[in-house]
């Protein structure tokens, strides 16, 4: 694509857009905000994403070229627990109200079979396992907050539908994103969260199948900690996207927590140790990594950063720091938070740009290029909350 076409497509002639693009090309980022300030920033953007949709869901992203996208059920789902945590942290009831409106919206768009559609609501798409799993997380949180059984009922129906999609090996190949992959550990984790909330209402045979499925997912990890089938996108074969590594690791940690399964925890430690040393030595991690963890250069001469993956890794690192008492992981997590917070510390009159977390840094990196994405905002917010001593805790598996 020519430079002129890029300028036209992404409206880089707009002052705010141009400032963002040029700043990224020059290696400039915002001043490093304190965590409390970064948290206010990111929730300001999250509020804008909900206001943009107007239907109770959160807009998937703000594209510099086309503006706000329609609401995204999947990411609205996992924004619910983060908003509830934020409401507890700040004491602002508006956030719990927003979270519950989002949960009601999700109830309203649940498909008759029990699952939820993939992609955004302005796109025709059938039910998808991964998307459904993330929504379960939100409904479990809504149920825990409100005690309203409707959310748990919907979650149980969703979980039942997802379990129907599981094949004999424990993978979710049908009706799933890219035929499934290691990132589906987070689906298993969300199913376990439903099981934990529902108690005996969650079928025992499903729990057995989830336990057995974990074997298959653990087998996707190579001895050096890298995960196979860890990229939704097939544009770069045999690479893992840091965002999807983040899903995988967080999923395994939650499985370890709920099931007391130490092997899942150890699998996370194997990958985390590699990522920690690579990050601390280079002070950056590539968006895409090859099987030996070396960077895939999506920008020709260099590799872009995947900021969602940065925040997810910061969450995983903070959980490991707590579980293992290893402050080196907290150290790296604080640095990751600083990087994402500084990049997102961008003032603009445009609510889509202001304090939004871009998919990639620089913004023309391959992953979600020229877009501020709501899932990046969600994970940044969750990581900041954890660093401030709030957010979901982690038990150490026995």
């Amino acid at each position, binding site marked *: 694509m020519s430079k002129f076409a890029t300028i036209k497509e992404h409206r880089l002639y707009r002052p705010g857009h141009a400032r963002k693009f040029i*700043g990224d090309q020059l290696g400039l980022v915002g*001043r490093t905000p304190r965590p409390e300030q970064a948290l206010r920033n990111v929730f300001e953007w999250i509020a804008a994403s909900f206001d943009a949709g107007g239907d109770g869901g959160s807009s998937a992203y703000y594209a510099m070229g086309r503006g706000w996208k329609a609401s995204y059920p999947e990411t609205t789902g996992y924004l619910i627990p983060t908003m509830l945590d934020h409401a507890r942290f700040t004491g602002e009831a508006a956030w719990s109200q927003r979270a519950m409106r989002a949960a009601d919206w999700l109830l309203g768009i649940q498909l008759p079979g029990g699952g939820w559609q993939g992609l955004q609501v302005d796109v025709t798409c059938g039910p998808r396992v991964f998307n459904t799993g993330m929504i379960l997380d939100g409904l479990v949180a809504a149920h825990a907050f409100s005690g309203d059984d409707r959310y748990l009922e919907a979650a149980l129906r969703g979980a039942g539908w997802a379990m129907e999609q599981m094949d004999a090996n424990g993978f979710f190949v049908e009706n799933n994103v890219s035929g499934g992959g290691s990132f589906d550990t987070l689906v298993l984790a969300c199913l376990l969260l439903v099981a934990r909330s529902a108690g005996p209402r969650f079928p025992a045979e499903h729990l057995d199948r989830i336990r057995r499925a974990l074997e298959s997912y653990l087998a996707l990890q190579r001895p050096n900690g890298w995960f196979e089938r860890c990229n939704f996108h097939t544009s770069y074969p045999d690479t893992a996207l840091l965002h999807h590594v983040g899903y995988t690791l967080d999923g395994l940690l939650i499985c370890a927590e709920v099931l007391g399964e130490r092997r899942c925890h150890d699998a996370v430690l194997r990958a985390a140790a590699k990522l920690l040393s690579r990050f601390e030595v280079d002070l950056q991690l590539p968006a895409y990594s090859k099987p030996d963890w070396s960077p895939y250069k999506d920008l020709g001469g260099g590799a872009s950063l995947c900021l969602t993956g940065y925040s997810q890794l910061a969450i995983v690192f903070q959980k490991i720091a707590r579980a293992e008492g290893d402050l080196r992981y907290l150290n790296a997590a604080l640095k990751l938070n600083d990087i994402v917070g500084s990049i997102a510390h961008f003032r603009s009159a445009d609510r889509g740009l202001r304090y939004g977390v871009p998919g990639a840094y620089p913004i023309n990196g391959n992953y979600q290029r020229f877009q501020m994405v709501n899932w990046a905002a969600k994970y940044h917010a969750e990581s900041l909350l954890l660093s401030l001593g709030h957010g979901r805790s982690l038990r150490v598996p026995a």
Partner: protein
Amino acid sequence: MKRVVLLIGGRSPAHASGFVQAYEQLGGRPDALLLLEPSARRPAWVSALLRPLKALRPGRWKGYAVDLVRGLTGTQRMAALKASWNVPKGESSWALLPPGIDLVAHAQGKGIPVHIRPALKASVIEELCRQGPTVFVLYAGGVIPDALLQVPGAEFVNAHMGAMPRYRGMNVIEWAVLEGTVPKVSVMLMTAAIDGGDVIFEREIPLDGERTLADLRRTGFLHCYLAMAEGVFRYARGLSVAVPQPKGARYYYRMHGVLRQRSQEALRQRTASPAAARVAP
């Protein structure tokens, strides 16, 4: 007995000066001094004249343009953000230790041969090792290239402010305080693996009233050269042996400001009472 050659990157580094004085107090005397110094030293007045011209080189213009945009937009360079995790400038050995003596003049006054070379090459090391096995006491910074490590009879020694193998890497004295362990100095033979060499000497760093991390680092640097002097003195005379590091290495990295604060609080608590300063290793 092995020969001892002091390898320095400047004429009066404070820690190298401290080493020489401590080594001499123990009854030792370096066999030679190897100073790495670029041969073509430009007179100061020439450098002063050239400085403004250098600033106008075309290669610098992009940097000025970036700085202009940075100033206008109230942003910072990503590199500056990452540099904020480095040890503050005032906490280097140069800033914390008293000025060193002129080691070249000191050596010449004592009849110690001084070799001045522009760069560290295998041929230089080979030349100095001709008279027998030699321990090079490293105060020139950096990593020793493999070709030098392979020179027969040559051993390079450095001091590290952490117990091995538990505290490899950076800011380890601050990490030890944060983690509530006893800070130590390890004197090691250098190998290709960073901080992975055999240990020839180890000693505790006693804490006594340090209030800030700068105080802590000053104490650390002081005990580094004292330990280096004692370790090299014993090793060169065959009074100690090199012990391979056991398994269980941990690498530490630059400490984030939040943890630096916690480390400083831990230091204050620990040094507030003499009993608290002694904790389990």
